[in-house]
């Protein structure tokens, strides 16, 4: 498997009042062409920051990429010029954000906002861009696209706006689409539609997708592989099937147990909804040498407080960073 996008030993630091905090700590993962990879974790785990790092949009100051590399088809984006990065953004790598209500500019029509990307990257004329924008609106299943193109964002519902965002992101047929919690702000029924759409349009344009989410349910539905992040570190990685059935890290197990399920009776296998006690540590604790999950972990040992967990390669495709790995035989019913 040759990687399309390869993130290696990426460290992003933020300067805070308490000193320098690594919001992303030695993160590595690969994305294969056409693959859907999911980054999972709670809020504040560095998922969105990873996305912004790939886009070259880390807010600076206070943030900066301290070390590592991000290569797209062999080209290290961290060393690319700003001009080159502008040619990459929206063209080779594009992004859909979490808040469709505020991610579109209220003073421009959706047609203008889609067409602008096309004109910028594909050198199309206004007329060509408009025609293609209508096609894109049609592709994201917005009815009457030729009329809708003259609408302003406030005239559209949240789901419609997210479709427009996807149309903008996919207009230039990017190699990589990063979707940062694309359905978190939407109704459940609309979520399913957006996922279907992303799958269909993603397949059509052959874009590899990085889906950022905190919801293991979305992961199960969308992704092929998953990277679980906690406090800026990758703690487990593997195929979705393996991770969902045999999670080896206690945090992954906790995330899966958090997914609500519809069952008539509460059984031994499916007890009441579980929670992970505590919360993600504050940024100032991110540099801590031990395991950052230790304060919340039910399998914590003395070693966990002293040393950063070593990555264990469990199978060729699955790895986890934990001193006290969950027994593979313990299955979690997802």
């Amino acid at each position, binding site marked *: 498997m040759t990687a399309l996008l390869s993130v290696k030993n990426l460290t992003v630091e933020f300067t805070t009042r308490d000193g320098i905090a690594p919001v992303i700590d030695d993160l590595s993962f690969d994305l294969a062409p056409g693959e859907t990879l999911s980054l999972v974790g709670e809020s504040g785990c560095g998922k969105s920051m990873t996305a912004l790092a790939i886009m070259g949009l880390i807010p600076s100051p206070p943030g900066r990429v301290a070390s590592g590399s991000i290569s797209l088809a062999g080209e290290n984006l961290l060393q690319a010029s700003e001009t080159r990065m502008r*040619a990459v*953004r*929206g063209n080779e790598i594009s992004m859909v954000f979490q*808040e469709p209500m*505020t*991610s579109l500019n*209220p*003073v421009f029509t959706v047609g203008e906002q889609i067409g602008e990307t096309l004109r*910028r990257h594909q050198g199309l004329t206004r007329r060509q861009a408009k025609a293609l924008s209508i096609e894109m609106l049609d592709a994201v299943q917005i009815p009457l696209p030729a009329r809708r193109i003259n609408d302003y964002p406030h005239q559209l519902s949240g789901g419609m706006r997210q479709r427009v965002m996807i149309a*903008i992101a996919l207009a230039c047929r990017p190699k990589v689409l990063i979707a940062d919690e694309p359905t978190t702000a939407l109704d459940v029924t609309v979520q399913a539609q957006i996922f279907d759409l992303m799958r269909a349009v993603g397949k059509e344009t052959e874009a590899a997708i990085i889906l950022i989410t905190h919801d293991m349910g979305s992961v199960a539905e969308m992704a092929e592989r998953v990277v679980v992040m906690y406090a800026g570190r990758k703690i487990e990685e593997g195929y979705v099937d393996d991770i969902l059935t045999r999670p080896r890290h206690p945090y992954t197990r906790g995330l899966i147990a958090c997914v609500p399920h519809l069952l008539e009776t509460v059984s031994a296998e499916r007890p009441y909804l579980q929670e992970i006690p505590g919360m993600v540590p504050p940024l100032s604790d991110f540099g801590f040498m031990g395991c950052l999950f230790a304060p919340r972990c039910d399998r914590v040992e003395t070693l966990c407080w002293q040393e950063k967990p070593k990555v264990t390669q469990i199978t060729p495709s699955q790895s986890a960073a934990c001193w006290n790995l969950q027994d593979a035989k313990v299955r979690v019913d997802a």
Partner: protein
Amino acid sequence: MQFLAITLKRCGLGLGLLLAVLVLNFLLMHLAPGDVADTIAQDAGGLDAEVMAQIRKDYGLDLPLWEQMLKYFYNVAQLDLGYSFYYNQPVTTLILEKLPATLLLIISAQVVSILVGVVLGVIAARKPNGIASHFVTILSLVGYAAPVFWTGIMLIILFASMIPLFPIGNMVDVSVERTGFAYMIDVLHHLVLPMLTLASIFIALYSRLARASMLDVLGSDYVRTAQAKGLSEFQVVFKHALRNALLPVVTTAGLVFSGIVSGAVLVETVFSWPGLGTLAVQAIVARDTPTILGILFFSSLVVVVANLLTDMVYRIIDPRIKTAETSEI
């Protein structure tokens, strides 16, 4: 079409407002004790009751109040604002003579302060902790705190006396006869200092406002989207951010227009600019009621028109307002 309908509606409202101003003006005029007959009697050193009654009859002052009011409205509708005994001229002629100078001053000050203020605000917002940003903060603090007449006098000392780049006052150089283009240049030359004086306070206001609103907009999700599209820095700032950041500036610009008219009075006095302000001061000193009321009427006209324009500009910049109004009509 909608735009036209809304504009017409706004014009109607503006007319209503002007009518209200007229009613107030008229009542104010009659609240004050004494009338023209008393004034004439005073000037003449006393008149007998018969003559005074005759004068009242001549001026229609013996009619019931409502009839006088209708007559007054009828006259105003024909742009007849009465007669100034102090200047011995119809008030309308007097005002129309001075109005262009004032309009030139306040409109140029407004345009310059919006342009300069917004540019300074944008520069400051790009690097909120940079030197430029601190400079803008200090400039606006000083500009806002300094009284207009003080700024005016300081500018005169600096640029008319110490470094004589500009004339110290008046609108034209009366010692030389100029026409056409040369005349325009001369007026512009005279305009610089008073315009800058009047603009200083508004530059302060707009730059602070533009800085704050630009900072806000630059942190918004849609600006991040614009960046993620790979647009150039210029497009992100001036296309996507600025248009949104302008909204509060436009609102304020409309609101301060009433203030700018009264601010112009001070500036005109300092620079002996032959505008409405100078006229108003003289009329107040001379207790020339018709002239004062006429000026009041014209300045409310200016404010109403300015607000109409603000409203239209707002509608052009922000599409959300157009539809919000549509559902109402």
